[in-house]
């Protein structure tokens, strides 16, 4: 086994998730170390989001272990996992639509400050307020949404909303971030911008990112390592190059998304020429 229990990041070992009789994820192993972007791809219904939910504690696995920074977090409640350093975004964005963008981003950190302590729920101390302001400003700056701070997410475009959710996750200062299909609903330019932000995030802050994504061009351009799932089973893992040339992956992916890989190969060839 390649996985060791003291991976500096997230490691999943032999994960099995069942919905009633259906085995949604069967024997998943993966690692997402810090300082890297790890991709998790697969056709619809392959169990990618379920893997995410098992990692963040929103579904209970039937078997397997989830470790974060070497610590076993399999049985912990979702909010405790976040406090241990794992943030996530959602495929269907979970934003606070009635609050401003700034409040949304601030809450990425402030919710963790409140945690499970009733007294910390009541009010922010002065030093916390200062810290929150700094963290939120940094996160918004990084995502290029400082100009939207006073707007409400309900009135923003999907691309902007994705950035707000990402900024909220960045504000949480997690060593590890799980991003669930961040580019769905984005156009080409927006997706490129998104990829650029993720790369600079990893370069500047050394966070680890585990990303579920359908946009192959994005996955191929930003990921350091890719896991491929099909029908709940891991079928392949390797570098973007290995994934792109794998017959097995091609077979599972016959359809529109294979185009992205073909395009990637073409680009590579063109670069070589």
């Amino acid at each position: 086994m390649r996985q060791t229990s003291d991976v500096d990041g997230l490691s999943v070992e032999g994960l099995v998730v069942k919905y009633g009789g259906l085995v949604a994820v069967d024997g998943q192993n993966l690692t997402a170390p810090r300082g890297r972007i790890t991709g998790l791809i697969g056709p619809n219904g392959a169990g990618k989001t379920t893997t995410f939910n098992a990692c963040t504690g929103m579904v209970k696995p039937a078997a397997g272990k989830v470790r974060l920074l070497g610590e076993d977090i399999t049985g912990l409640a979702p909010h405790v996992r976040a406090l241990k350093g794992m943030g996530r975004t959602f495929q269907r964005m979970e934003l606070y639509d009635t609050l401003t963008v700034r409040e949304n981003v601030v809450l990425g950190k402030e919710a963790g400050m409140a945690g499970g302590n009733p007294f910390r729920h009541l009010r922010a101390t002065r030093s916390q307020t200062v810290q929150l302001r700094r963290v939120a400003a940094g996160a918004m700056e990084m995502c290029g949404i400082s100009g939207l701070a006073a707007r409400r997410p309900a009135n923003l475009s999907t691309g902007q909303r994705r950035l707000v959710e990402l900024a909220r996750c960045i504000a949480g200062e997690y060593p590890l971030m799980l991003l669930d299909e961040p580019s769905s609903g984005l156009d080409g330019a927006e997706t490129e911008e998104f990829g650029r932000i993720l790369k600079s995030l990893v370069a500047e802050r050394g966070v680890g990112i585990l990303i579920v994504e359908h946009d192959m061009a994005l996955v191929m351009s930003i990921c350091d390592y890719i896991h491929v799932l099909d029908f709940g089973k891991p079928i392949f893992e390797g570098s973007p190059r290995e994934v792109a040339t794998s017959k097995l992956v091609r077979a599972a992916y016959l359809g529109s998304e294979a185009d992205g890989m073909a395009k990637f190969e073409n680009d590579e060839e063109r670069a070589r020429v």
Partner: protein
Amino acid sequence: MKDYIPYIIFGLTSGAIYGISAMGLVLTYKTAGVFNFAHGAVCAAAAYAFYDLRELQGLPWPVAAALAVLVFGALLGLILERMALVLANVSTAYKIVATVGLLVAIRSCIVLRYGAEALPFQPFLPQETAFRIEGVRVNYDNVIDLLLGIAAAVALFVFFRASRLGTAMRGVVDDAPLLDMTGQSPAAVRRSAWIIGSVFAAASGVLFASVQQQLDVNILTLLVVQAFGAAAVGLFRSLPLAFVGGLAVGLLQKLAGKEVASHAELQGIDTNMPFLVLLLVLLVARRQQLVEVGRHIKERAVPPSPFPAWVRTAGFAALTVFILLVPQIVGTKLAFWNVTATQVILFLSLGLLVRTSGQISLCHIGFAAIGAAGFGHMLQHDVPWGLAVLIGGAIVIPIGAIIALPAMRLPTLYLALATLGFNIMLAQYAFGKSYMFGFGRLDARRPDVWGMEDDKRYYYLLVTIAFLCLLLVLAVERSRLGRLLRAMSDSPTALTTSGMNVNVTRVMVFCISGFLAGISGALYASLFGSVNQDSFNYLDSLVVLAILAISGRRTITAALVAAFLYKGLPGYVDTIASALGDQDPVQVQTCLNILFGVLAIAAAALSQGQFQNWLSDRGTVWEERSSGPRELRYQTVVAARRAKRPRTETDRSDELVGAGSGGRHG
């Protein structure tokens, strides 16, 4: 063993009736996604209808029973179905508000026509001995009740498994749009469910009145508590288990009744068995088993005030002046205004809970009673007056936490059920005990400084305390807790994944709300010199929720308006009554309660801004009519021109821009 046989027989008899009622409740809940708190009120209405037809109109009982159960019950079912249809698109909190409003309205209608006192009810089933078990007589009516219950359960079970409509009902639970596509109308299916559910409720109401041999509007209305205790056994989903739960609750109740008869301290606990069963289920059930039926609707945020800032400032200034001048204006009615001032705190507390966190409490009057009791006991121990008030509030905090904790991890609905059960348990079990209101009554006085015996002076003290409570609520709303609460109403999931335990937040706000309710109860008690178990009408816990719902959603105005409607307006009921031509003031007050209930339903139905949308829709239609033809002509001309000439670069870029922005927004 022989001693237990009569209790088992009675337990099974009433258990079968609870079972019938519970099946009706579960059926409507799981097909329509609206948990009907007025289910017991339907039972009561049918029982009274039966009484009316039989005793007052002189119809033979089979005819009266058929009319009350089959016709009247089905009619109520149709009305409920219309209501549920509207409520499908409002938040859970408002669904609860609406059915609670219906409960208040139906109960008040019954009181209006038949009075609040219990009426004798002639049992109509044969009372002769059918057979004996170990020498204990078993009457025909017991046997018939049990057989009816079993028959209803089996019939429902077979109907669900075998009939086409039964299958469709299961389909509507799983996926209504999909059912729609197969050619079965979900609306028609739901209508049948409501009719069956209401007929079951009506049948259980008539049978229960017959067993009790009396018509008591409160007992019948609260049959919903027995029903939800029984339904809890089936996790609010399973019909057969709901019936079994009914039998179990009935048996437990009677057997507990026998056991506690010899323990004075436990007396009254037997009637609360349904609540205890519910609490047990809430404690042991896994969260996944108690998901809420129906679509989850986010509550609409409170829209910004339509008035400019200076108008609002002027309004509040005028209001402040009025509040300060009240003792000079109202004359002999000042006592009512003093009570109103204490109730402002109650509504601030309830508003904080309902508005900022979307939770529902159906035990706020119970909390107020606890606060009053704590306050009274503190005074007995010579605690200074102000401290006693604070302790009265503080005592509610741990109690509120204990009630809320099991329900917190579950959806809003279960908190409402738990608090309603607690409210009733408090009234039926604890109110009579010495630790609540002493022996008979508990002294509660005003502070003995500054001549507070004078109502005018005391009024200003009360207003000051209410103002401080208002500041507390405003501070909570503006603090971190307020921000977390607003975020929670948008997306609890996001908060959880950002590292916050949302259950802690919910319990916090519930406890703060309980604290304020306790203070309001303590001050209320201080007005009268003493309190006893009749000082707090536990059913008012439902009325206050209805009143709050119709008082708007702004912190300050809602609390003031609601407090006036609840305790200020009754001071002027005799004026209204004489203005209406010498009506009975009590009847007028009952009519007001009907009005509150009905308006609460309307407020819930319009809670998502339906009225504003309807208005703006009408506006749009009107605009289209006036300007429509011209626009239409213009477009046609442009389209015709474009069709004639070849496509140009500008056309295509227009389209692209359109498609791009459309995609981004979609």
